[in-house]
């Protein structure tokens, strides 16, 4: 059929609408409800009949209408009283079907640490030793306004120490730090100069989780950002680089005056996430490099999980989003639904009013109503009971491949990769830029798995890999429901110091 003709037919149906059956009396019934608070003077039908003879066709003036409410039996009294009465009458009882939701184990799929992977030319690397050179390092600092600002304000602390083991030499060029973030600039020469190196902080009794973001690998200089969650980085610690079973340990002593300044804010009310729960903000701390928010999530009954898109906003409406992988706290804290978010904004950038808000476009909740997609590995069959056609999951075939780490080393076991597409997901919200819209569990739970998610022209693609040797029978996919319909307003936060 001609598409244009079909379009015309669709348009015709869209433009027209029949009246619902037996709806002729609705106006009368509704008028009764509306007029009831005003007192019992005549019926709506009576009033309808007065229309012709009244002055309704023109705008009333103060002399036309003077205090219609005083002196009535059971009168409402003031305009405000009447307004309240009407408002109460029209309150809608919200009945969102959540009662049947149950808890399902899930693991958040995320793209994880963002790897910029910018390459630098040697002259830039050389120039790095002559701080401040922020202007020439913009590509290194893309997406890191907090770090950029810290460097601009001379918070870079040069170290320039080198350790050589066998034929590999690692130089710790310098760091920029605040209470919970450590940006490490280093370089590797000799053998394994191109390989991936593992960074770790060696701090006694340091039990907090650490997230390491590898930001750039140039020919000489690399940048990694270490984010500590739930614990402050001390001014003295050992920074260890592990490569090829060799450990390069650098004692580091931070200049507290360059790394301990921060601004605290407070919010004395929880952030309401529509009907899905609340986020109780416990602490907002903006340091030299990053802003950190500690919060307790209080989901509403029946809501399994919430992935929060939190942002800070200045008075100009410019938003800075907190990392989407905010849940890197210790296991115990996760169980208690506490969260810690970090965003790259420096205290130097704060000016004027600040607001905090939850972006419905980046916030999603999980419900087992949607957790009904599962994939049988043996028969390669998808079982789907998704209620909305726009949430179809399509299986795109499997691939057996080797999996390599960041340095290019391949694992010994081949992996089977299953790819799923969810065509409707980005259609629902074409502007969506977040990651956390999927979850999965496997039966039996394998010790290893890999997950990824990206956007294609066809929709969102999930890539789930398991080792060929694993005995996974079934993969469950749980889909997060985006809150694109909700209106969540930001709230102003107050500076404490």
């Amino acid at each position, binding site marked *: *059929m001609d598409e244009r*003709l*079909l379009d015309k*037919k*669709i348009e*015709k*149906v*869209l*433009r027209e*609408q*029949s*009246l*619902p*059956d037996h*709806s002729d009396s*609705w*106006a009368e*019934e*509704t*008028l009764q*409800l*509306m*007029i009831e608070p005003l007192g019992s*003077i*005549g019926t709506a039908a009576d*009033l*309808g009949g*007065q*229309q012709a003879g009244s002055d*309704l066709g*023109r*705008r*009333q*003036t103060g002399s*036309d*209408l*003077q*205090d*219609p409410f*005083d*002196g*009535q039996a059971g009168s409402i*009294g*003031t*305009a405000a009283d009447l307004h309240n009465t*009407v408002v109460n009458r*029209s309150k809608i009882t919200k009945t969102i*079907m959540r009662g049947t939701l149950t808890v399902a184990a899930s693991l958040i799929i995320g793209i994880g640490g963002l790897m910029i992977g910018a390459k630098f030319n040697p002259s830039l690397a050389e120039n790095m030793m002559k701080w401040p050179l922020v202007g020439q390092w913009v590509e290194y600092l893309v997406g890191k306004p907090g770090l950029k600002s810290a460097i601009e304000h001379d918070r870079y602390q040069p170290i320039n120490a080198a350790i050589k083991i066998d034929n590999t030499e690692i130089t710790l060029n310098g760091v920029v730090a605040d209470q919970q973030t450590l940006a490490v600039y280093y370089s590797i020469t000799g053998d394994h100069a191109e390989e991936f190196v593992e960074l770790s902080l060696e701090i006694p009794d340091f039990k907090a989780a650490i997230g390491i973001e590898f930001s750039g690998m140039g020919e000489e200089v690399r940048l990694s950002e270490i984010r500590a969650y739930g614990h402050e980085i001390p001014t003295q610690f050992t920074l260890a680089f592990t490569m090829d079973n060799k450990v390069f340990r650098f004692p580091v002593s931070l200049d507290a005056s360059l790394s301990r300044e921060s601004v605290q804010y407070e919010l004395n009310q929880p952030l309401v996430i529509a*009907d899905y729960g609340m986020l109780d903000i416990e602490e907002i701390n903006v340091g030299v490099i990053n802003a950190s928010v500690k919060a307790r999530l209080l989901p509403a009954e029946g809501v399994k999980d919430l992935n929060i898109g939190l942002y800070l906003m200045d008075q100009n409406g410019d938003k800075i989003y907190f990392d989407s992988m905010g849940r890197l706290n210790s296991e115990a804290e996760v169980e208690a639904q506490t969260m810690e978010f970090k965003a790259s904004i420096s205290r130097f950038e704060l000016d004027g009013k600040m607001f905090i808000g939850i972006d419905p476009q980046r916030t999603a909740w999980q419900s087992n*109503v949607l957790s009904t997609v599962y994939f049988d590995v043996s028969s390669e069959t998808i079982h789907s009971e998704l209620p*909305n*056609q726009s949430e179809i999951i399509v299986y795109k075939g499997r691939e057996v491949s080797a999996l390599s780490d960041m340095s290019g080393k391949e694992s010994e076991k081949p992996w089977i990769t299953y790819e799923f597409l969810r065509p*409707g997901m980005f*259609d*629902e*919200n*074409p*502007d969506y830029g977040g990651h956390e819209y999927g979850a999965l569990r496997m039966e039996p739970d394998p010790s290893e798995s890999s997950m990824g998610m990206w956007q294609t022209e066809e929709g969102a693609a999930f890539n789930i890999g398991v080792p060929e040797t694993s005995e996974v029978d079934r993969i469950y996919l749980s889909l997060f429901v985006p809150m*694109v319909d909700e*209106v969540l307003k930001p709230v102003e936060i107050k500076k404490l110091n």
Partner: protein
Amino acid sequence: MGWLKTDTPSQRGVSESNEVLKASLTVFVKTHDVMIRKLSYKLTAEVEASKDLYQQTFLKAMERLILPEHLALLSPSGISEEKAAANWLYTICLNLYRDQYAKEKRWLNVVEPQYAEDSAQALKIEFAADPDPEPLEVLMREEERAVIESALCQLSDHYRIPLIMYYFLECDLKKISEVLELEISTVKSRLFRGREKLRKNLAAQEFSTANPIKVSGREV
């Protein structure tokens, strides 16, 4: 406060002005009755739900109408004010639907089949140009309409509401973007994708007409 001031006028004055207020509300409801009935039915596709939405719309409107600053909405003095009042009421209706009914509907929809898109076939229906069609043609048209309506019902509200606003309420892109709090480009995208999805849904329904499908609890 003008007409809502708390001075104590004569009993007669009270009675008269109260009657005028009630009469104004009556005219207001009767003026917009048909369109709000249609709109609420278009949005909910269910008689009971549309009645509820209809009543909530007017009750919600009354919260504002009784305030003096909204007098122009209650008793518009010209065509432009009448149009503004109608638009304002449509917005209330749409927002109520989005706030309440759409959430419930999200869970109540039962739409199958999941993979019908792969078997997309054109809908073999034609609208006759004959102004005085035969009874059989009328029947076929009604059937076509029902198929298209059901396809519209299956559409996610992200697409359906902009389509209804654009075609049924004849809102322009700016108005849609304001009411739905979307960028104009997003509105355009949703209108385009909505029409596209509607076409696909129709093709899918044609594919499955041999096996009646469930849409919003009714067999089509």
